[in-house]
Structure formats: C-alpha cells, structure tokens
C-alpha cells in the first residue's frame, strides 16, 4: 500500500513535506501569537506552543505519509472536545451551571452556533429580524461573526465544512472510530434524505413560531454545551430529547455502524452544506480508468455519500464532506481530491495540496482559540 502511494506521488520526502508545511507554520504562528509571542504566563505560553505544534505536526504528517483522514480526524476530534470543554468551563465559571437561565435569554446572552442559521433564513427574509437570543455583534460567539465564518466556509468548502469546520462533527466522528468492525452494516439509502426533512420541518416551524425549534427541541449537542434549566414538564422533555439523541445518534449508532450517523441522518446544517457543494471549487473525483470497483470507498465512507452506483458512474454524491477517508482507503488512488473543471485522474497532487492547505488552515485557525484554552486548563490542572 505504502509503495503504491509513494510511486503515485502521494507520500513526500521529509524535506519536501517540511517545505509544504512552512506556509502553514508561518500563518498559524501569526494567528496564534498575533506576531508577538507572550511568555509572561507560562501555562498560556505552553498551551499556545502545544496547540501550535500539534496543528503543524499533523499537517506535516498529512504530506509526509500521504494520508489525509487519519490526521484530519485527530484535530477534528480535539476541536469538538475542546470546544465543549471551553463552553462548559465558561458556563460553570460565569453561571455555576451548564444550563442557561431565563435571565440569560431575556438579556440575549446565549452563544450563537452555525446550526441556527437554517432556521434564521425565513424569518430574516419576512420579518427582517433574527430569531435568536444572542448578541448581533461583540461578545462571545456573536451572530454576525458566526454567520460570516459559516458563509465563507460553506462557499469555499461546501459540505467539507462538516468535516473540516464543524465543531460538533468531531463527536460522532470520534465515536465512529471506536470499533474496528461495524455491528450494523446496512442502513436504507432513504435515510440519507432525513437531514432535508429535518431542515424543512425546522425551517417552517421556526418561522411560524419565531423560535429556533431545532435548538429548543432537537439539538443533540445541547448535551455537551448548554441547555435550558429544567423547571417544567416541557423543559424536562427537551432535556430528555437532547440526551437520548446524543446517546443514540452521537454515541451508540456511530459505534455500531462506524458511520457519522448524527451528521448523516439528522443535522439540518449538513443539508444546507450539501446544497453548497455545488459551488465549492474542491471536489472528489473518481478516475474510472484506475477504479477496480472494489467498493472499499463505499464501505469506509462515514456519511453514506458513496453508493456502488455512484462508483460505477464515476461520480461522488453531493453528500460528500471531503473527509478523505475514501481517498486513504483507495489503493489505486482512483478516488482523489480534485478541482472543478479539471478532469478526473489529472493534477491529483496539485488539487490535494491546494485543498489541504485551504481546509486545514480554516480548521487550524478556527479551532485554535478553544484548543489553546483547553490545554491551558489542562496544564493548570496538572501543574
């Protein structure tokens, strides 16, 4: 396998890999330190250095080994864990609880996340207002910056956002890697359309109720971020739904299927990002001449984005999040990163290098804050 990769030019020499890592090294250094490293607080400096090294070592290994998903997943999972840690830590420090109160809602202090965006669109168009109790500008996770970050990311990465930018995806990605072999092997293709059904339902209910219904009633990640105080039958029901969905779709099913079931069967944001897959310049291509139709890619795809029919037709479906798992699994390099307009089977390295730089840079910078803060907490705890 390694020989195949080497001969095909996926693996790079040590020096060449370092050279490819240099721009990432410089840019992440600038972003993480602001150009002026501060060593006055040893715990912060150590946390920053660890995060910086982690990001760059992972990127280096992507080039050196020719593997993508293995190293992407490490940062992706750390990102998810660290964001939950940072949020919970802040909540406990400020509010002494993981739940937010009615006062927090009244004062519009709820952190905004990208999952609200699909529910905002209709009310924004018809009522010219945002239906979320957050801050428009300023403060932690404000609406304007989150909308902007998501908008640019989804245009640039399409559904790639779900594997390179989403700070929740790492949870089910992580759990999907626990078992070596799946217990549940076959799930009907019909379920791939579920996020669209959820999207329609939450977009309509949110518009009619002027309330982000997915956040209020469905979001499984409330279990690892923040949720409404349990004060009534309704809020208890909500908490029950959050916990069951988290347990079922983020933990149990990913473990049993080795797939990212929450992302595949529930997330309305995934449905929106699927639509933007039509815009992004970065795609996955199947070189029909090299493909032996072994269907290894179908087997490993965590998002049910590939079917045997897709492989036979030489097309990757819109559900693809460019995680790179199929690329890593293909011994013939038949499935590879590509750029729109460039025919399949050509300019494979150029396309991969460009895509990796763009997507990894986004994830590295986007995740830096929460990873540094988590390391900081960890070091303070240890020392």
């Amino acid at each position, binding site marked *: 396998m390694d020989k195949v990769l080497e001969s095909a030019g996926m693996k790079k020499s040590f020096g060449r890999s370092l050279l490819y890592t240099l721009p990432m090294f410089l840019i992440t250094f600038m972003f993480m330190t602001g150009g002026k490293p501060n060593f006055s607080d040893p715990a912060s400096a150590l946390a920053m250095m660890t995060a910086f090294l982690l990001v760059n070592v992972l990127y280096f290994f992507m080039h050196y080994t020719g593997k993508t998903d293995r190293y992407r997943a490490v940062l992706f999972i750390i990102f998810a864990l660290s964001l939950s840690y940072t949020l919970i830590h802040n909540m406990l420090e400020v509010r002494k609880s993981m739940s937010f109160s009615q006062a927090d809602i009244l004062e519009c202090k709820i952190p905004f996340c990208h999952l609200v965006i699909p529910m905002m669109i209709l009310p924004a168009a018809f009522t010219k207002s945002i239906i979320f109790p957050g801050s428009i500008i300023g403060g932690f996770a404000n609406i304007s910056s989150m909308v902007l970050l998501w908008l640019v990311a989804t245009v640039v990465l399409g559904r790639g956002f779900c594997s390179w930018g989403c700070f929740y995806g790492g949870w089910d990605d992580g759990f999907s890697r626990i078992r070596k072999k799946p217990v549940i092997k076959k799930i009907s293709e019909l379920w791939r359309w579920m996020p669209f059904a959820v999207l329609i339902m939450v977009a309509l209910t949110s518009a009619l109720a*002027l309330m982000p219904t997915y956040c209020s009633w469905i979001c499984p990640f409330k279990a690892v971020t923040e949720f409404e105080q349990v004060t009534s039958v309704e809020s208890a029901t909500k908490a029950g739904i959050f916990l069951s969905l988290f347990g079922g779709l983020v933990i149990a099913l990913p473990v049993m299927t080795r797939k990212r079931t929450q992302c595949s069967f529930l997330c309305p944001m995934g449905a929106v990002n699927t639509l933007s897959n039509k815009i992004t310049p970065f795609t996955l291509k199947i070189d029909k001449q090299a493909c032996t139709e072994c269907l290894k890619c179908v087997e490993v795809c965590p998002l049910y984005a590939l079917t045997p029919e897709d492989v036979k037709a030489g097309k990757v479906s819109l559900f693809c999040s460019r995680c790179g798992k199929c690329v890593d699994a293909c011994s013939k390099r038949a499935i590879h990163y590509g750029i729109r307009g460039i025919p399949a089977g050509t300019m494979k390295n150029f396309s991969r290098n460009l895509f990796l730089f763009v997507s990894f840079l986004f994830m590295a910078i986007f995740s830096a804050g929460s990873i540094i803060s988590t390391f900081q907490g960890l070091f303070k705890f240890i020392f």
Partner: protein
Amino acid sequence: MKKVKIIAGISWAFLCLILIIILFPGLNSFSVSVSKLPFMKLNPRYTGGEIANQVISKSCTLDIRRPVFNGFLKERNSGFVQLDWHGTIPDMIKDSIDFDHDGNKDFCISINRKDSKTVLNPFNKKVKEVLISTPTSYGWAARVKLVN
C-alpha cells in the same frame, strides 16, 4: 473549452484560498459590516421590544416596553409586555402599569424578590398571566402575557 474550464476552476480555487487567508484577520471588521445588514437585528420577541415609557423613582427605574405581538407574517393574537427594573430595587416590588397609554392602569404587579413570588392583578381583560419573572444582571425583569 476544456482549458477554459481548467483555468476557471483553478482561479476559483485560488480565490477561495485568498478568502480563507483574509477571513480571520478581517473577521472583526467584516462582522461589523454584516451586523449592519437590514435584517441583522434581534426580533422583539427576544429583546422585549422598544422602551415605551420610563417610571423613575428615588432609587430605581422601571422601563415599560412596547407590547410585542410580532408574528411571522402578521401580528399574533397573544403577546407580552416586558417590564425591567434597574438600579437599587426594593425587596418588594409593587407597580401599577398602563401599557397602552390610555390613562388607565391595566394591571398591578407585585414581586417578592426574596422568593421570586410574583402576583398579577389585572384591571384589563387583555392582561392574562405572568410569563416570566426573574432576576437579571441589571435588576429584575418580568413578562406579562397579553391578548389582542
């Protein structure tokens, strides 16, 4: 045609690279521009509506907000009026409110801050019940349900 497609694809990819590189350093200033878009304001159901009247007493101020009946396409039958108390608030709040500015008091609200017990005494058929009564960072807030 094939070459044009390749050039267009690569150009679009490089443009995306530039977008990502300038996104983070420019995030604050770009966000300010986004926040100025016409729909970028919170719905009154969340802000509580504009302040319509202020009652200033010795130690504290009561803001009476405009009643909120906002719906998706048209006004709803039920809504609320939000009251905010700022400053040094007494342990026992008791205020009579005229939310529709017709010169007549519409309800009287009494709040015991120690146990959060809130009693509503409506004088107007439109006033129904207390939806929220909670301490806030600035003092105390209450929402009273209204029907049209």
